[in-house]
């Protein structure tokens, strides 16, 4: 029962991930990426990690992908970013990288031994269990990561606003600065 669901979800995830990199239209790529994320969220639920699954959908599928879509729609790229711009050397390099990744994955799977999923604790992925781990055992890395993110946000704002604040918004020509 569960293995059937797993196979279906995994196949959809793989197929849509393949579609992400083969579609010509960037909008279609984004939509397939959303489908991939939703499938991965289903896999998380099957592993008992409900909180991670919800976060996967809220943060990646719901927020970041909408932002991608937003930017792509403003750029108005209409499917002319085709294969013809890509040199054969780059395609060859891509295949080489994929081959290397496959090699590493096979080597890792061979050493992994049994493919059985160990008996999972059903309480492992709940919100309270997750919160316990995040705010007690890994409190310091968590706080450091949040400071890092804050720094990144401030950096982006500073880079956008190269001009002094006083000049912004006083552009009498009506040009967007």
């Amino acid at each position, binding site marked *: 029962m569960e293995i059937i669901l797993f196979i279906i979800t995994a196949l959809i995830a793989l197929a849509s991930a393949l579609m992400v990199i083969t579609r010509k239209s960037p*909008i279609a790529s984004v*939509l397939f990426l*959303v489908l991939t994320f939703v499938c991965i969220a289903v896999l998380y639920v099957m592993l008992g990690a*409900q*909180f991670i*699954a*919800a*976060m996967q*959908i*809220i943060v990646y*599928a*719901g*927020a970041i992908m*909408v*932002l991608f*879509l*937003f930017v792509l*729609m*403003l750029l108005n790229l209409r499917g002319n970013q085709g294969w013809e711009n890509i040199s054969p050397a780059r395609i060859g390099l891509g295949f080489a990288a994929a081959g290397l990744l496959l090699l590493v994955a096979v080597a890792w799977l061979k050493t992994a031994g049994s493919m059985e999923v160990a008996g999972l604790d059903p309480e492992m992925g*709940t*919100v309270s269990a997750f919160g316990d781990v995040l705010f007690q055992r890994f409190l310091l890395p968590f706080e450091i990561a949040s400071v890092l993110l804050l720094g990144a946000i401030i950096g982006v704002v500073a880079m956008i606003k190269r001009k002094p604040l006083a000049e912004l918004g006083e552009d009498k020509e009506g040009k967007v600065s």
Partner: protein
Amino acid sequence: MDWFIIIASMVKMLAVIAIVMGLATLLTWVERKQSAVMQDRLGANRADIFGLRIIGLFQPFADAIKMITKEDFVPPFANRFLHTLAPILAFAPVLFVFTVIPLGPPLEIAGRTVTGQIANINIGLLFIFAFGGLAVFGSVLAGWGSNNKYALIAGIRASSQMISYEVCLGLSLVGAIMIYGTLDMTEMVIGQSGHWFGWLPRWGLFMQPLAALLFLPAAIAENKRIPFDLPECESEILGYFVEYSGLRAGMFMFAEFVEIIFVAALFTVVFLGGWLVPWLAWDGFHFPWGGMWYLPIWIVKMLEFAAMFIKIAFMIYFMILIRWTLPRFRYDQLMRLGWKYLLPLAMLNLVVTGVVLVLLR
């Protein structure tokens, strides 16, 4: 395989779909009738079956038949696939979220407890955020897939509005989550039982008044209804579904009505004590002046179901009242309200709630 759980879930699914869809169908009529009442008109009262009118209650059926039989036109330059996908993406997530909203109290059947929601999952409210957040794809893709400049601009308006107000919506509910200490919505309602001073029910509205006040505008903005209906505004600057006709346009409209029910149900569960009736315990009423009125358990359960639906109906009515009362916000006012007033207030609410919770511990 536990047949009891499977059958109970099936029954609950059918009941929820029947209730939600039926109520949404009825709302199309209620909204028109309410506008008529407020504008001193009679409103939709002509639809009849064999001369039977019942103040126009058959109007939704007439509307549905009209929607279905209209020409379903796809503009020749539109992206056919996205144009078809968009109404589905707008409608499906709104229906999904009812999985975790309890529409009634837990019942004891054959020695087992059956909760009022379809799935009793640990991440209840997060599930709502997750699928509520996906609804934005419907409006964005409708705008882009139609290949129409006005629709595209409206789609971008819709996405920026929904992203902006989603933040405030989430933060206003986090305060409530902190107080109840759970994400499961049945437990949230149970957490609101009891009274202060013996008479004031401990509902979320009284524990988190600011959060309730912030939640409602943010939720109406997510729902894209007046006064936040800039992405749609059918009559003036064209919405993201200009290029839709027939049943597909109907799906966008219907999704909006389902969303009204969803917002009303969520507000009821989080802030209005769900199915709880003031002073009603499991064995009957305990009045604050000392009186008692014992009731059998099945009457208590019936009262609780009735209370849930009365509260939901009141919230729906309130939202329709707002829709026909207020004018629309301008775009800059909309953004200013969301980012400069609602968001800082929601954060302030979080800080105050956190401090009070730590002090009380």
